[in-house]
């Protein structure tokens, strides 16, 4: 698997899903044998991970939503998504 770039199109593979946990009042990412607690940023990113958008497009959408700099957002979310990919809970 090669490193992620702004042109990569990420998706959650089968067996990995995000859901709301009413008991802990937070979104969690469920994966084989593990649970990731997600902060607000991670939730916003993963909601846009759909197997269609590129990472660049995801950054663009978040930039316009939060009136922030796209390059900065891209630089933030690339390592986060790469980390999930190295744990095999995100694919391209």
């Amino acid at each position, binding site marked *: 698997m090669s490193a992620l770039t702004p042109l990569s199109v990420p998706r959650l593979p089968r067996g990995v899903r995000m859901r709301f946990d009413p008991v802990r009042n937070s979104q969690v990412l469920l994966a084989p*044998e593990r649970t990731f607690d997600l902060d607000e940023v991670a939730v916003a990113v993963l909601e846009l991970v759909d197997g269609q958008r590129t990472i660049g497009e995801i950054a663009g959408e978040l930039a316009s939503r939060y009136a922030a700099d796209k390059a900065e957002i891209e630089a933030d979310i690339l390592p986060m998504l790469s980390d999930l990919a190295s744990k095999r809970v995100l694919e391209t």
Partner: protein
Amino acid sequence: MNAISPAVPAPIGLLAELTHRCPLRCPYCSNPLELDRRSGELDTATWQRVLSEAAELGVLHIHLSGGEPTARADIVEITGHCARLGLYSNLITSGVAGALQKLEPLADVGLDHVQLSVQAADAARAERIGGLRGAQEQKLVFGRRVVELGLPLTLNAVIHRGNIDEVQAIIDLAVELGARRLEIAHTQYYGWAYLNRAALMPTRADVALSIAAVEAARARLAGRLVIDLVVPDYYAKYPKACAGGWGRRLMNVTPAGKVLPCHAAETIPGLEFWHVTEHSLGDIWHRSPAFNAYRGTDWMPEPCRSCDRRELDWGGCRCQALALAGDAAATDPACSLSPLHARIKDLAVSEAATEVAPDYRYRVIGGAPAAARQEEPA
């Protein structure tokens, strides 16, 4: 000490031992020596109610286990119920006998993940360990089918003297099958494994080699295969947080409906376990004597009580403390700070040093050898 702490977090996972029936006879099986019989197993409706209660309580992961969970005629219904509740379902299977036939229906009702056991990479060896001829080919066919169906596959190999030199081959097998995860789990000596410890204990040198093989493969296969390693207790410096800490993360429901804080908890005499037919799961989690017995840190003796790792490993494993120290409330002798640690390590070394390992005592229902329980010097 008996008061319910308001801070008890909700459990994250539930191990549903749907049945103790299994076509394999692994000598390290973590099931108890006294296996539940089919006639005593919970029915479908009860399991479904238990799963609904688990979801309400905050459980996120359901591990459908056994024995062999696909030996239950209602495995598809039970799994479908998990999916409807949003529970993440993990099928822990040997992949033999009827498992393959059930796989596609399970995928269709929303099974999330499959964990397939392999006993070794070499078929003849694997089949000697699992005690079933023809098992390996069935497992390989099953594993390939899991990947074809797009389900995530984890391979699980329990490591011991009889396969420790095959760790590299097992890693290769996981890659070849297309597994996303591999668990290299050194034997934990409970249940049948405790009974067979002298036949299973590897040497310290072999343990070190196997760990090195895993570390090299992790670097080489980053992003392709995640390898989780469970290191052997007897040679470790600190124990593991058993089940993530007693009564903190996990619940274990036996085929007959008894609810345990860990799968070996029944070996501890005097603990009072509650039953799903008499109490709700929430009640059992918060109020049952067994769950409160070793919850938190109040019960701890020295050296745990004043140790700064006490909320990391929670004093190790209670069942191991009982087996090795004769007292379930002792510091786990796997810990290097335990006064008994040196003796335990010597024992492991001397068992591993026997030239020919003793024969396995295979797992069998109704076959628990009478005098085979805890025979350790206290």
